[in-house]
């Protein structure tokens, strides 16, 4: 297409959309009456515009309502209690029903204490031999791995627990800035211990 058309091409959208008036409108209409190329462009663009108007709605890949309901529940609770509430997600791309789970910072701290205590207790039990684990992890593995094996043998398959761990990890991310760094490190370490136990449990359940 020659550059002579560019002057008219630049006005085609305005022409199609009824934005031109007076001499501008008359000029392009006179040009279109004699130029097949520009008329073809106008028809193509008109077709695109008409097709765009007919594009349809789409649906999300999952039902978003459970997560929305959880979030608005949490905001309603926060509004009524004034507490510093943390709404917890359902889980990454999960279709699970909402847990209705939300915690205050104090509750999260309490949960962290439970996690730390459980992990410490299991590690100590395994270390002093209070608990005998059939098919125990061979020697040479550290206490964390021994504790993980022990928890796996006791807890068994653990899909629901794994979801709860994910929720706690996400909550920890949200309050990280408000906790003592040392506390954060301990929490992360102990969540990893339990996560390792879950993975080992799942492996054993498959075998």
């Amino acid at each position, binding site marked *: 297409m020659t550059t002579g058309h560019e002057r008219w091409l630049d006005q085609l959208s305005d022409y199609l959309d009824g934005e031109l008036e007076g001499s501008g409108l008359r000029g392009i209409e006179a040009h279109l009456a004699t130029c097949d190329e520009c008329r073809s462009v106008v028809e193509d663009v008109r077709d695109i515009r008409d097709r765009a108007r007919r594009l*349809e*709605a789409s*649906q999300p890949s*999952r039902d*978003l309502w459970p997560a929305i309901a959880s979030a608005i*529940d949490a905001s309603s609770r926060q509004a009524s209690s004034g507490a510093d509430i943390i709404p917890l997600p359902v889980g990454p791309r999960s279709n699970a029903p909402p847990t209705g789970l939300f915690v205050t910072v104090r509750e999260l701290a309490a949960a962290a204490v439970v996690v730390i205590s459980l992990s410490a207790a299991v590690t100590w039990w395994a270390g002093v031999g209070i608990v005998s684990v059939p098919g125990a992890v061979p020697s040479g593995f550290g206490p964390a791995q021994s504790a993980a094996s022990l928890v796996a043998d006791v807890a068994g398959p653990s899909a629901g627990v794994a979801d709860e761990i994910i929720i706690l990890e996400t909550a920890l991310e949200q309050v990280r800035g408000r906790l003592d760094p040392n506390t954060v490190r301990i929490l992360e370490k102990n969540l990893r211990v339990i996560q390792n136990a879950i993975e080992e449990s799942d492996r054993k359940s498959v075998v």
Partner: protein
Amino acid sequence: MTDVHKAAGGDHEAFERLYRSHVGSVHALARRMVGDDVADDLTQEVFIRVWEKLGSFRGDSKFGTWLHRLAVNHMLTRRETLRKREARTVTGEGVLDRHTARPQRSSGAAVDLERAVGRLPDGAREVFVLYDVEGYGHEEISGFMDIAVGTSKSQLHRARMLLRGYLDQ
């Protein structure tokens, strides 16, 4: 009492009905404006924001119109943050295909157009979606995007000409 009034009073079931009625249009807007990968998350954010803002709906316009405007504003605000997360190479009109169209029950022509829209550069795509797909005027788009009306018109023209080229391929 309408579902909007009930939801504004805290009725979650009424709000769910509003969600079910409007989720399709909001999701399509998110997909076309920002991208397929983040459309679900953006849609979720919009409805949470709608819940928070329900008290400000005065009934001057239809609820769907009010919700849609809120959605547009939210998506335009979030798009920069979302784009920084993704590793992309943008080379003007040679932009890589980042928007994977997921047309549902659509004709071949609609699928082609969806894919072509996904290839548009960001500014041109946003104006095209708002003007030709969603039906906003240039004055409104200028307000949404904080650009001059003339810029909105030139971006629209650019989008249409690019689409013509993509669809001819």
